[in-house]
């Protein structure tokens, strides 16, 4: 083929015009206010208006795993994340920085939330009086019904954790369902729905056993948006709640 046809197939390597700065140069009050507006228009749909996550990651945490530095955060906002749904943007550099400033303010607010508890005492609350490990795993120990808490302190701020302990029914995650199943041979299974489509359903029961059924094999099944997690509002004192939150906030899934 003529050499010039090759030009049509030539893909320029992605060029990142990253600013030559170490720190975000646009972090004034006015920048954060403007950043909030830009964020509301472009980011909130996935990350939530308060940055508490949804389809996108929770941004209201002290350390963002993919954007630990200002420049890394700029790069994620400007260029997106490959092989995820996080897109790039053609906003001006100043606007990218303003969004970054607002995102950092979410993390700072989360980090500044007063924990007011004692993590050492909280460990006892979580593992003994609260019986949290019956359903949740922390590292090598714990159950399988609820999500693991091994790195919950890195994923969730203290305010979120406190709210969960006090009123777990208030904010059940979008895709969380409990399923009750009766098979055609009369066995009953209750557990967390793992996956469902027109023809099939997958469940993990309270004992951790995995089940997969074609729906035609079932006599009956019921899927409900509810949680079996109890409220601790009446079970623990406010000091014990604070201690538990303090302990959970220390759980960061660290490597050996």
């Amino acid at each position, binding site marked *: 083929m003529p050499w010039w046809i090759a030009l049509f197939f030539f893909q320029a390597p992605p060029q990142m015009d990253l600013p030559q700065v170490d720190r975000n140069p646009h972090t004034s009050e006015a920048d954060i206010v403007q950043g909030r507006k830009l964020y509301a228009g472009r980011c909130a749909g996935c990350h939530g208006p308060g940055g508490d996550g949804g389809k996108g990651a929770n941004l209201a945490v002290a350390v963002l*795993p*993919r954007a630990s530095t200002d420049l*890394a955060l700029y*790069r994620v906002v400007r260029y997106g994340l490959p*092989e995820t749904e996080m897109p790039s943007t053609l906003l001006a550099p100043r606007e990218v920085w303003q969004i970054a400033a607002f995102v950092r303010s979410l993390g700072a607010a989360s980090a500044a939330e007063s924990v007011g508890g004692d993590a050492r005492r909280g460990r006892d609350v979580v593992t003994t009086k609260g019986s949290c490990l019956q359903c949740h*795993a922390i*590292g*090598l120990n714990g159950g*399988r019904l609820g*999500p*693991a808490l*091994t*790195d919950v302190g890195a994923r969730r701020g203290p305010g979120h954790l406190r709210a969960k302990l006090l009123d777990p029914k208030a904010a059940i995650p979008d895709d969380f369902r409990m399923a009750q199943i009766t*098979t*055609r*041979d009369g066995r009953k299974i209750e557990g967390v729905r*793992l*996956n469902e*489509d027109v*023809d*099939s359903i*997958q469940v*993990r029961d309270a004992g*951790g*056993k*995995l*089940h*997969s*059924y*074609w729906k*035609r*094999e079932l006599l009956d099944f019921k899927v409900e948006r509810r949680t079996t997690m109890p409220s601790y509002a009446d079970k623990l004192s406010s000091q014990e709640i604070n201690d538990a939150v303090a302990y959970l906030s220390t759980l960061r*899934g*660290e*490597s*050996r």
Partner: protein
Amino acid sequence: MRKLPLAFLLATVISPSQVGYERILGAAKEPGNWLTYSGNYAGHRFSPLAQINDRNVARLKPAWVYQVNSLQKFETTPIVVDGVMYLSEPPSNVTALDTRTGRPLWKYRRVLPDDLRVCCGQVNRGVAVLGDLVFVGTLDAHLLALDAKTGAVRWDTTVIDYRLGYSITVAPLVVKDKVVIGVAGGEYGVRGLLDAYDAKTGKQAWRFWTIPGPGEPGNDTWKGDSWKTGSGGTWVTGAYDPDTNLVYWGTGNPGPDWNGDVRLGDNLFADCLLALDADSGKLKWYFQFTPHDIHDWDATEVPVLVDTDFRGQKRKLLLFPNRNAFFYVLDRVTGQFLHGKPYAKQTWAKGLDDNGRPIRIPGTEPTLQGTKVWPSVAGANNWYSPSYSPMTNLLYVAVREAGSTYYIGEADYKPGERFDGGGFRNVPGEEEWGAIRAFKPASAEVAWEYRLHTPPYAGVMATAGNLLFGATNEGQFFALQATTGKPLWRFQATSLLVRSNPMSYLSDGKQYVAMTMGNSLYAFALE
């Protein structure tokens, strides 16, 4: 609604029972599962299942397809335990699927740092299982134990600092109560290692540095301080023999790859087969295939352990069709070299001497202008798996027939930077091709050959149904008759790369053959 037989319903509880070491050891006794990377400890990648066979394979059809959200190369071999399939996905993720429906049960998604050091794609070749844990190595050089029921991280151990150029792409090997794991990093001047960790806690049990330090045997095969950047990665899963209690594991190229002038000497233990005591990690014996390698011919292929007649005597053999285009037969008890010969076009050695050491042809070193040498940099064989069938007593290998032009370059070491010392290109005007070859294990004589259009990069699996499954670079999955090489069935699966190995399992008593092709995992079953 249609009434279903009771037996059908009972089988829908898919909770895997605990996988003890004894189960992996006796993998042949439960052919419906696939409990370790190569199907058994001997590296056979042989399925004793025969429901799908050379008489009915024409009726093979995809039963379900699972696609990953990545266009990185998808190199994993799934593990199957009692109705659950565990597979790694690029870059360092793990998913559990129901083997019958292909539906997901849980997913583990790792957030990786943005400054990884990977030479050749963000890939992972598989997981290992023991007890109710699933083990996976990550590109940032951690070893994780995930809960087999939930995917939650039970422990997370940093093997070594990835910023020095290390990554983990290899599927771990569980031996007794330990998880053996290797590293990649041969293009970054790392110091290679093979580690074992306590499966329950993630605590390190032993470490073997593949490049010996000062005062250790073999350190004198490196001029000056060149051992410090000697590479010798361990990025392909090895084999284990409970009788010798040895772990057999291949090591990668010496660093820098193509500039040998800065590391004069034989460069032990790069390009070796290591035999390590499974309990202590102590070196029992080694065999170096390519002393002072200057062509990047890693000995990171799957060692195949076979007990068969060798010149009239029953022996415990280790078969190793090497990337350097020579087929080696070793005694796996002592490490003694028994036999070796070229099995693909090669132009770099006159042959092997009585000890198996290559007799190099002068003028085959990389140069500034480029030197044409066969085999190519990717070799006559590579990380993808061979297969040994005890029924045909043949070793099947996907062979690559190609050469490269090799260049030498500057080799300045900076920690965490690439450290190649040269490069390579295809040989202009030369046709490359490939073949599936069936070898008699002791003599390395070719029993049959099935020609491929281009050099393959996918492994093979023989089954008790007298079949051999494999795949072409052009995206076709095929079945040959294992005794004759006659093509019986093929399926056009993808326009993307095929970089993996077939495996087989039973679900609800029905045989499936699974293989990742493109960015999809296919499970095939009879119509």
